[in-house]
Structures are given as C-alpha cells and as structure tokens.
C-alpha cells in the first residue's frame, strides 16, 4: 500500500494505552505526583457528565469538583424536569415527546461542550454517570446525540450508585439516591450493583416541591406590595395578609424556598403520641404518620404531573381552585375538601412539633395585579420550613415507600449474609439530601422503623382465643411486621455521610462498634455531587466502565443517521428512534453472562485498562 501513514498510525494506537497502563501499574513513577499537568492539553481527561432529570453536572475527570452545574429543565415552558416518570400514551404523543426531548437534550449537550467546558468534543471520551433507572430511550438518545451530533470518540456508562460509593472510597454499600423524580436504593457489593434488589419510590424532590406548594397555598400568607409609595396612602388592604396567589409560587420561587428556607427537623414523636392527638384520632392506624387521605391529595397532584406541558400550571390550578372558593378565613368554607382537611391535620401536628421561625420572603407579585410597587412578601411559616419535608418520611404506602422504607426494603431483599455489611454502610446522595438535617433524620427514621414497638397484640389475640376454637392450640400469629427479619440490624445501621453521627445516637439504640466506625466517616463531599466526584475518580483511574467506541456505534447504526440525512429520502420520519441498536450495555437487558451471576460490572475493574487500550 502506498500509505505509510497507516501502519504508523497503527503502531501509534496501541502505544497510547501502554503508558496509561504503566502509569496505573508502576505507581512509583512521578507521573502521578505531577498529575495536575500530566497531559498538557488534558485531552486524556474524560468528560464526566451526570445528567439528572433536572440538574446536570459536568466537568473533567481528575478534578475534585464539577466545572459547571446547570439547570436543564425547560423552565420557559413551565417544565420542572427534562423528562418525567411517565411518557405520553400513543404513538403520536410519544413520538412528539421524544422529539422534544431529543432536541432539548441536544441543546444541553452541545452547551455542555461548547459553553461550559469549551472543549472539542471530538477529542474527548465521555463517561456518563447513569442512574440505574435512567430510561433506556433516554440513554440511547444521549448516546445518539453524543456520537452523531458531537462525534465524541467513546462513551461509557457507569452506575451512579457505584460511582457515589467510589467517591467515599468504598465499593460496598447501600446507596440511596434521592433525586428529583425518584429515590432509588441500590445495594452494591464489591463494586457489583445488585440490580435485582433495587427499590425505588417517587418520594423525592418533585414531590417535596408539590407538597410545599400545597402547604404554602393553604397556610402561607401573602402581603401584596404597597399600592403606592406615599406613606399615608397605604391602604389597609396592603397590611392584611392575603391568601397566597398560586401564580407567585413559580418553580423558581419554590426552588428558592426549598433551598433557602427549608430544613428537616428531628423525628416526630412516636406513633402513640400522635394517636392521642385529637386531630388524628379519626384515622388512627399503626403508622399514623400517614392518614389514608394522604392518597387523595397526592394523587390529585400526581395525576396532573404527567400532563404533557405546563403541568405546573395545571397543578397550581387544581390546588388553587378550592383556595379561591374559600375566602381568607378557611374555617368558613362551606365545603372543605378532603385534601384540605388533611392538610389542616398536618398543620396541627406539625405546628406542635416545630420551633422554627417564620420567614418573610420577597416575591414578584402575580402578573395580573401589577398595581403595587415593588415586590410582595410571602410569609413562610416556620412549621412548613421544618416539616415540609415530612412528606418524604411518610411511610406506610405500599407503592410509595418513604425514603427510610425504601432503604429497608432493599435491605430486606439482599442476601442475608450481606445485610449487616450493607446496613452499616449506607450512603445517601442526590440533591434532596442537601436539605440540612435530612441525613440525621433519615438515620433516626431507619432506627425508629426497626425498633418501633409492635402494636400490642393483646386485644385481638384474646378475642381470637375466646372466639375461635380451631386455633386454640396453636400459638397466636405474631402481628405482622414487615421488617421483622431485619430488626436485629438496628444497632448496625450507619450512614456513611451522616454529618452528625453522634446526635442521632439519641434514639436509644446502642450502636454497634462497626456502625460507629462507619457513621460519618465518609469524606465531606456534598451528597449532590458525590456521584460526579466518583465519576471523576473513575475517569482518573481509567475504570469508567465499558466503553462504546464511535466506530462500533457507527457500525451498529449503519452510519445512516449521520447528522445530515439524505435530503431526498422521502420515506422515513419516525424510523430514526427505532433504529436504536442494542449496543449500549444496560443491566435491565443484560444478556446474562453464561453461568455468571447477574453482575457484569466488577470484572470490568481489571478489564477496564484493556478496554481503554482497545478504545484508544
């Protein structure tokens, strides 16, 4: 052949991984001590992208913090997240939704490279920090955009739960990722995610926002801005609190309230205490923190959320309808909605259990009534600040476990031998745990769930003894306790990144030595960024997971969906998303390695360097 360049290039290709391998094996070389500039232009560094449904974190591997964090939701159209837990039904709606999502993803991904990182995507390998429940179609979309539009050389997907564990220097643990749409608990052992034991709940940031909004609509107070700046002209209307108009509680305002005002108070008193309260005696159940009416209001909110666009407006409208009909004095309302009654009960309970100060929050008045001057004032009651997040800890629902229950459920599912290990290395990551007090509270809830005294079986059993004769000689069945088998784990429960591990030992449970050796011993990375930090670490150690090279992708896709489609092909409009090739590895469609347990990841640790060698 006349091209001497080809063999030369071929020689050069394996040459790249070799220094990498040496670098990782021969530790004594000064290569890593000067790691700051170990590549002048840094093209060896991978790009770590943590794509949440709402917030993305991006940066380069080997750095301790992301370069940029961005809100990716389409806030102009009232969306609070890029994708939701539901997809539209039907072909037409779904296709349109996917097209929208793909276009927005493309926007965001291009912005990542061109605006945030200012780098050439063609020379950068990418590691995607992948939530275990990231929908496959989104994953494929991201890969398609990265390969076709941005032409990155390779992508690897790495489990966010595993990366978070790496970020605290471990490879075994039970990770709760409490994000915006979902909270997902996933046990991992020796860097293998035990995906079949994954548990999830929709109690997460979005639910918290909705709950806070509902509480504020009912119990917040709003002072419109002064109608004029003349001091004497202040009408009495301005000095009286008004009901909170739904329009002012925009997503941005809610987010700011969440961020700047809310925190998580200590655990509520135990169930008995609450059953005694007059407000709640109507529906006393074993786990009284959730009166059954909870479902109705949550459903009424949740049922709107999947609506395709402007779900926020619909949400607010649905909530604000009763508030509009009832005047300021809620007690005089002719018809009290069930949800409202429930919220009032909550209020009584929460108010008693809160000592937080009320806060005055400046908000832009609703656009309709721009009569005043300046900004209005929203009074956020202290109990909402402190107890708004109670919704995340309200358990007892089979479909929507609390964040504590989701951890315990996952613990229930893991093999018995691992339970103790995992229970003492719980890691909490995600944006919602950034609420001050969240993690200590979660710990308290875990302990409480495991040590809660069983409801005394006496009345029922005595009745059974008297009335039924067939069970007379059998011992009474113990009252059902979901967590009976893991109750002994209570002393071993430890959250690795518990910021105040000692204060939460006041629950009366003597902590085991292992638990106290683990609790709060994680490095002080924030929960929200931990998966990203782990990804950065994995990139620096060249263990980013199985790489998919662009050649492989092009091969699999036939290179057809190149950026510029054939202009004259009249036939296909919607074939494009269908062409998703199954070359992206995903645990949910894992072709089980023959004979091996369903955990293909850990073996990749050693294989990683080879992967890099092949891909490079």
């Amino acid at each position, binding site marked *: 052949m006349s091209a001497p360049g080809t063999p030369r290039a071929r020689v050069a290709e394996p040459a790249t991984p070799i220094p990498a391998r040496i670098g990782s094996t021969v530790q004594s070389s000064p290569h890593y001590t000067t790691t700051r500039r170990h590549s*002048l232009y840094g093209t060896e560094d991978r790009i770590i992208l943590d794509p949440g449904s709402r917030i993305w974190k991006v940066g380069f591997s080997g750095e301790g913090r992301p370069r940029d964090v961005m809100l990716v939701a389409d806030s102009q159209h009232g969306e609070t997240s890029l994708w939701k837990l539901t997809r539209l039904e039907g072909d037409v709606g779904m296709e349109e939704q996917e097209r929208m999502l793909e276009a927005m993803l493309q926007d965001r991904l291009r912005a990542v490279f061109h605006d945030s990182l200012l780098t050439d995507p063609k020379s950068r390998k990418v590691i995607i920090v992948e939530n275990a429940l990231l929908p496959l179609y989104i994953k494929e979309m991201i890969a398609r955009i990265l390969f076709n*539009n941005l032409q990155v050389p390779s992508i690897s997907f790495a489990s966010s739960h595993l990366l978070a564990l790496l970020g605290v220097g471990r490879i075994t643990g039970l990770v709760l990722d409490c994000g915006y749409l979902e909270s997902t608990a996933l046990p991992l*052992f020796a860097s293998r995610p035990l995906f079949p034991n994954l548990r999830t709940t929709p109690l997460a940031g979005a639910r918290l926002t909705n709950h806070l909004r509902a509480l504020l609509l009912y119990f917040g107070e709003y002072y419109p801005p002064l109608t004029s700046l003349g001091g004497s002209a202040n009408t009495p209307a301005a000095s009286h609190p008004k009901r909170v108009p739904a329009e002012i509680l925009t997503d941005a305002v809610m987010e700011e309230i969440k961020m700047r005002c809310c925190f998580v108070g200590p655990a509520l008193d135990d169930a008995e205490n609450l059953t005694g309260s007059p407000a709640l005696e109507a529906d006393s159940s074993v786990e009284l923190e959730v009166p059954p009416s909870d479902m109705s209001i949550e459903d009424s909110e949740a049922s709107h959320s999947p609506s395709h666009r402007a779900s926020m407006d619909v949400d607010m409208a649905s909530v604000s309808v009763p508030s509009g009909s009832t005047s300021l004095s809620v007690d005089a309302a002719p018809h009290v909605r069930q949800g409202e009654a429930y919220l009032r009960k909550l209020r009584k309970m929460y108010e008693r259990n809160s000592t937080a100060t009320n806060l005055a929050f400046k908000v832009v008045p609703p656009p309709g009534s721009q009569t005043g001057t300046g900004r209005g004032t929203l009074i956020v009651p202290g109990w909402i600040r402190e107890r708004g997040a109670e919704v995340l800890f309200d358990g007892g629902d089979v479909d929507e476990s609390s964040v504590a229950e989701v951890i315990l459920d996952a613990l229930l599912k893991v093999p018995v031998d691992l339970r103790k290990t995992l229970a003492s290395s719980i890691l909490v990551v995600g944006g919602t745990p950034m609420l001050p007090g969240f993690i200590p509270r979660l710990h308290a809830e875990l302990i409480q769930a495991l040590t809660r005294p069983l409801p005394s079986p006496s009345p029922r059993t005595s009745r059974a003894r008297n009335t039924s004769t067939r069970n007379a000689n059998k011992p009474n069945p113990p009252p059902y306790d979901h967590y009976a088998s893991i109750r002994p784990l209570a002393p071993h429960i430890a959250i690795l990144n518990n910021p105040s591990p000692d*204060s939460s030992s006041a629950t009366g449970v003597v902590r085991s030595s292992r638990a106290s050796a683990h609790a709060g011993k994680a490095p002080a990375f924030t929960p929200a*960024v931990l998966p990203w930090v782990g990804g950065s670490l994995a990139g620096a150690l060249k263990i980013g997971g199985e790489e998919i090279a662009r050649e492989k992708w092009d091969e699999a896709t036939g290179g057809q969906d190149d950026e510029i489609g054939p202009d004259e092909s009249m036939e296909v409009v919607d074939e494009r998303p269908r062409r998703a090739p199954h070359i992206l590895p995903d645990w949910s469609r894992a072709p089980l390695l023959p004979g091996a347990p369903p955990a293909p990841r850990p073996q990749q640790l050693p294989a990683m360097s080879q992967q890099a060698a092949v891909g490079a």
Partner: protein
Amino acid sequence: MAPSVNYHCPCLSSAATPPPPNLPSSSYSFHPLHTLYFCEECDAVRCNRCVSVEVSGYYCPNCLFEVPSASVRAEKNRCARNCFQCPHCRNTLSVVPSDPPDAGDLTSSTIQIGSIGEPPFFLYCNYCRWDSAEVGITFEKPTGLALQLQKTEDSAPDSLEFERLKEHFEPFLRASSLSASTSHLPSTSHAPHTHTNPITAAASSALARDIPGVGKYNPSLGRSGGPGGGGGRSGRDRTANKDEMPEYRSRVQIGGAGSGGDEDADLMRHLEVPAEIARLEQRWVSSWATSLQSKHLKPLRIPLHSKPTKRCPSCRHILIKPEQKAQSVKYKIKLVAANYLPAITAHLPHAQIPKRPVALKSSVTSSTGPPAAEEDTAEPTMVAGKTYPFQLALTNPLYDPIHVRLAVQRAPLPPQLQSQDTAGTTDKEKEKTRRPPFAVSLPTSAFPIAAFAEAWEYEDEEELFDEDGGLVDKSSPAKDRAGKGKTKTVGVLEKKANCTVVGGEVVIGREGRGDVKFNMLVSYTYRSDDPAPSDGGEGDVEPRSPTAPKAAPEMKTFSFFTVVDLGVIVPKDETKVE
C-alpha cells in the same frame, strides 16, 4: 407578536420535509435566518445545532486577554489574572486598596483604582458593595491575584481528598489488573469482548464468581489471614471486610465537618432572613460540604470564553472562522445563510392600519367584502372565520437576479378546506382538530427579484424594473389595488430594488384556533456562474426571464423550507361579527 419567518435546517430529522409547524418540537428545526450558515460545498443550510464547533481561541471576557490553550486546562477555564466575579451579584470585582489611615475621603477615592494604595488590597463589588475582606481574602499586591489565590485553591480540601481517594484505589486496581494479566482464564471470561468458547467462559466464571460471605482467594491481594482465614474468625470480623477493599480513611470526615447536619438545621431553624442562606446556584458547584451562609461565599474567577470555529458537519469545510485577536469581532471566514438565501419578512397589512391610515386601508377594506369589522379590531390578531391578506417581502442578497417560487407545504391532513366546510361538518372536537384551521393562498407562479446592488445603483433602474414585469402584476400598488380588488391581494404587489413584496391570503375557518403557522417551500432559480460572480450585470435589462441569454445549464435552483407564523387566531365567539 409580530409575524415571523424562520428557516428550516434539516439536521434534526432525516426526512426531506420539515415537521408540521404545529408540533412544538418543530420550533427546533426552524431558525431565524441570521443564525444560519451556508455550506457552499454541500450547497446546504447549516444551523447551530448541527455545525461542529471547535475552539480556535480562549479569552477572558473581562480583560480580553487571550489565554493559550495549554494554560486553559490548568486554570480550569478561568481567567488566571485579576478578574473575579462577585459571588452575590456576579458583577465584576475591582481591586481596591485599603483606605489610607488618615487621608481625606475625596483624595483617596480619586486615586483608588490606581497603583498607589495601602498594601492590603481586596476585591470590591461596585454593585452590591461586597468586598473580599468579609471572607478574609486580602492581597499584598494588586496584581496577579489569581496566582496569590492559587495556593489556597490547590490546597482546597476537595482536591486533597480527591488525590487521597486516588491513592486509595490505585493499589487495589493494580492488584486486580495484575491478577487479571497473570491468571488468564478468569480475566478473559470476564472481559465482555474477548471471544472465547462460551462453555469455558461459563465454567470459569462460575468458578471465579464471588460467593457472598466467602472471600475470593486472591494471592496478589495479600489478604490478611490467607485463604483459610475467612472461615476461622468470629462472625463480626468475617463479615466486616468482605469486599477485600481496605477501609478508606477520609482526610476530612463529614461527621466532623458537620455541614448539612444538626448545626445547619439549627441555623435554619433560627433563621430570620432568607438571604442569609446562599442560593442554590451559588452553592451547587462546590463539591465540598461548605457553609450554607451567603456571607461565606468566596469570589469567583471569571470563566473564559472561546472563539469558536464552525465547520460543516458533513464536508468539514469551515463556515465560521473568527479572527484570532480577542478584541476583534471580525471573521476570516463567514459563510452565513443570509448571504445566500433571500431574506423573507412577513407582515399583516391589517395590523398596520393604525400606522398608515390613508389610502391603502380604505381601499383594502372597501374592496374585500367581509372585513368591514376589521377596522374595529386594530390589534394584530386574526379572528376566526375571516380572510386576511398578508405580505411577504423577499430580499435578494445575491448579485444575480433570482426567480422565486413559493409553495405552501401541504399538511398531511386534507388541506385547504373552505371555511364553510369546516363549519358545516364540525360539531365534535375531534372533527375540529382534524380540520386545518386555515387555508393559505400564495402566488403560484415564479416571480423575479432583482439583484442586490449597492444602494446608489438603484436610482435609475426603477423604470427598467417596471417595464419588464411581464408577470401578473404592475408594481405600483396603490393604483391597481383599487381597481382589481381582491385578486390583487394575492400576487406580486411591489418591486423595489432587490426587494419584492408578494401578497398572500389566509382564510381562517370558523372554528379555527391556534396559530396561523404554515410551512412554505421557497425555491429560487439563479444563474450559477460559479464562485466568482464574473458578470457585472446588475444593470441587466432582463434579469428575470427564464429565457435569459445564457440558458438552461447556467440556471440552478435551490429550495428551502420556511415556517411563516402570522399570529394567533382569536376564537370567533369572542368577537362576534355581524
């Protein structure tokens, strides 16, 4: 909202036809003309969503210093000089010296920015009056501030912890890669892409698989206690470290740092002013558990900007190449679509009635029957069940005259229904939505647009243009309008220099609602005399006849799609006519 015309870039889908304009996703396929590029090699429109972008240079937007790309990486895309942002309001901070001990205020303020000043310098925000002394950041010299801060940044706890984590994992990885390379069988069976006999792979992986609770025998790890050690010890020890990973000891434990824990909860509980807590945007980049309070925020280094070079995604030709200097806003190469495609602007004459109330309005309203009530509705809205004229002004950027043909893209549904039909058949919502809410008529024949020329060349050409029209129209609009009436709303209305105005008409169904938004195919024929426009023929007498002196082989046609958005239909029941 003014009517708009956006141009289609086919990059988002492989289909030749653009998406229906009523889909919300279609807005991503259409772009304003001024954001588009044109690749001469591919003869195609390119947009910002498909061009491939390369960085041709970095600069600081504040000091306009060009940063060499080698140091960009080390400085994390931030300006490494004296440029900082206020952490509260993101304003640029300025370096100010401390107040001299006793000098008068006036004199000190005049020389403040200069070089003289007392040694402890600090950063000061001119907008919100924040200064870096609040967070204990002061400087000895007023220059090289980033360098002075660098030391503290290098020893930031997150980067130190990160290095420690790396050191923690490296021996483990080394050991596992060693074992993988020495013992061949397990490694090949685990590597997903080595092709081995599936049976041996299955067997070996079954053998090598981890049994929970039973540590894998791995001599290279130097597992304490050796292979038999696992079973012999007490239960607690046995389960303590099953993953063979040594315990990681954090440099700074989160339990000691206390952020996010009870202290912060207490702070929040007794909070009086929400502004004391930093916003999300101010905190989220920090990966380290830091204080919640906004008074502890540190100044930020200003992020660099880049000057991008843009290339065609298929042929790699450069479309945009900026000049290297940061101060320059010029381009070395600039292939923008505005230089190739005719610019189209749309407007609704009835929306402009209040602006020019004279002859035009009266003639229009009198000639066309229905819009008697139109005079009342001065706002630029369109009421359902009526007919409105609209005008498209096309401007030719080429040095050659072009012939343009417009066509409305047929909707996939049965299009062009008369309003009577819609009214007659629709009782159900389904039916309504199925019917197109409006119908558009445009001049069907090709019409010419004169070549672009410098402004002074147009004066004496006016008559020439008038003479050789040959098409449906004469170019003086006012005279003909009154006579021919309705037909004149559709057709070429006006020609002036390199701009031609054509009229169209939109018939809105009685039940129509939504936006009047339609895709329009624009194809124009031009004389392709190759890259160099050799002829000086702007003043050519008949530029627009297809039978031009040089005939067929020289003519080229280029087509592109646009979406015309005329505005929102006002439902009829709001403003009832008659």
